[in-house]
């Protein structure tokens, strides 16, 4: 059990670290930018649109890093040996999960135990980022680098828990943004598509978001209208649903797990494509085009598996967000203890 938790911690930490790592400059365009043509013809809805409806959780992909290990270069799939290691690890995790009793010498951790987490399935893909061809997030623009440096400067001498505003938008139960809502994380990766004539709705379990996407070609609202999830318009290209989202609030969410990573600007244009590639498989791609933040557009691709047994449960995040005041009260208690210690020291 503890081994399982520690293993999970290490894997998840590696995933998070890969998101945060400084990226390398990228040269050239990728042959992987465009989705592979699917020969599968999806069923049609009564009004003629391709049927994409269903539950498409990203759970299978939890262990796939967003960015590729730099050592893998432009290799999009792991080696046979690496895949065997992933399979062996998954088997160990499954075995640990079956242990019914906590061992007497089990270690006690401050982090969440393994039974809180969902587990992925061994995958051959080396990263979710497929373009640039090295599978890594492009370099930040000079403007974005300066903004990041200023943000870091502003945090100098400021504790991590001085106000609720020090917490992420995820911790504050506000929004993980469009990409933060779909990139696979440790749990609650439910995503559901529901269609009606002229509209597609996409529901995200955590944190309780629904995107309603008109398909009638109406223009986006004026540029002063902005939101965390942006404004989406959709159209069909063959059997592929193409969604263009604009009108974002800038400098809020990033394109990382749970909305982390470098925040995108208000000018980002996000192009998502949903293509069914088989009766129970969907290819999802998202191209991030934000010239104020990244030196070139970049693309994430995820194979999503239909899982009718993965219903979305309500995620009324703020209902029980006790952790917010627990963290703030904890910080105040530490400050008080430090003050007391300082006074005692002076006497």
């Amino acid at each position, binding site marked *: 059990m503890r081994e399982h938790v520690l293993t999970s911690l290490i894997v998840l930490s590696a995933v998070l670290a890969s998101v945060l790592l400084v990226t390398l400059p990228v040269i050239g365009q990728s042959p992987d930018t465009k989705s592979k043509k699917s020969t599968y013809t999806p069923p049609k809805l009564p009004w003629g649109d391709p049927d994409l409806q269903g539950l498409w959780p990203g759970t299978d992909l939890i262990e796939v890093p967003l960015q590729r290990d730099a050592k893998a270069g432009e290799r999009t799939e792991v080696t046979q040996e690496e895949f065997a290691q992933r399979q062996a690890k998954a088997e160990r995790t499954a075995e640990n999960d079956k242990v019914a009793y906590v061992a007497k010498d089990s270690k006690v*951790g401050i982090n969440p135990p393994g039974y809180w987490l969902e587990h992925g399935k061994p995958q051959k893909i080396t990263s979710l980022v497929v373009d640039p061809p090295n599978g890594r997030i492009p370099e930040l623009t000079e403007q974005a680098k300066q903004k990041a440096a200023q943000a870091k400067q502003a945090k100098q001498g400021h504790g991590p828990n001085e106000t609720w505003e020090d917490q992420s938008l995820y911790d504050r139960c506000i929004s993980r943004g469009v990409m933060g809502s779909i990139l696979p994380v*440790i749990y609650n990766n439910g995503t559901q598509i529901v269609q009606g004539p002229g509209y597609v709705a996409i529901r995200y379990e955590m944190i309780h978001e629904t995107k309603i996407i008109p398909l009638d070609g109406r223009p986006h609202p004026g540029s002063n209208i902005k939101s965390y999830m942006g404004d989406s318009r959709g159209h069909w290209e063959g059997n592929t649903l193409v969604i263009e989202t604009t009108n974002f609030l800038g400098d809020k969410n990033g394109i990382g797990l749970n909305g982390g990573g470098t925040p995108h600007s208000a000018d980002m244009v996000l192009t998502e494509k949903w293509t069914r590639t088989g009766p129970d498989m969907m290819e999802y791609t998202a191209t991030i085009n934000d010239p104020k933040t990244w030196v070139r557009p970049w693309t994430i691709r995820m194979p999503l598996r239909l899982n009718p047994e993965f219903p979305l449960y309500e995620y009324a995040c703020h209902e029980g967000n006790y952790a917010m005041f627990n963290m703030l009260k904890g910080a105040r208690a530490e400050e008080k203890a430090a003050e007391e210690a300082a006074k005692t020291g002076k006497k």
Partner: protein
Amino acid sequence: MRKILSVSAALIGLLVAVSPVRAHHAFAAEYDGKKQVHLEGVVTQMEWINPHTWIHIDVTEPDGKVTSWMVEGGSPNILLRRGFNKGSLEKGQKIAVDGFQAKDGSNRANGSNITYPDGKKLFLGSSGTGAPADPGPNK
């Protein structure tokens, strides 16, 4: 009924050194890694709330005094997917909890290990997501 034990600083140091899982929030900001607790008590309430569940227990001290504790549990959504439901943990059930106490010294703890008195895990895991149609990680 109640035992609060301390463990060696070395063990705690080892655990704290492990990079944190990004759960809904930073547990190291909520709980004090120097205040390990072992609690045995009876369930008075389980709050099925997001982002995380909370189990309320009454712990009886050796002198008969009863103190109430709140123990932070997993996301209700995943517990439900793993087959744990509203009827799984009823009022009056005896449980044991190992974890760390809140930094502000109040009677709150994280639930690193939550078991029945015989050591059986309260939330037994399963392969994959635990959903009935999920074939597990090896299929």
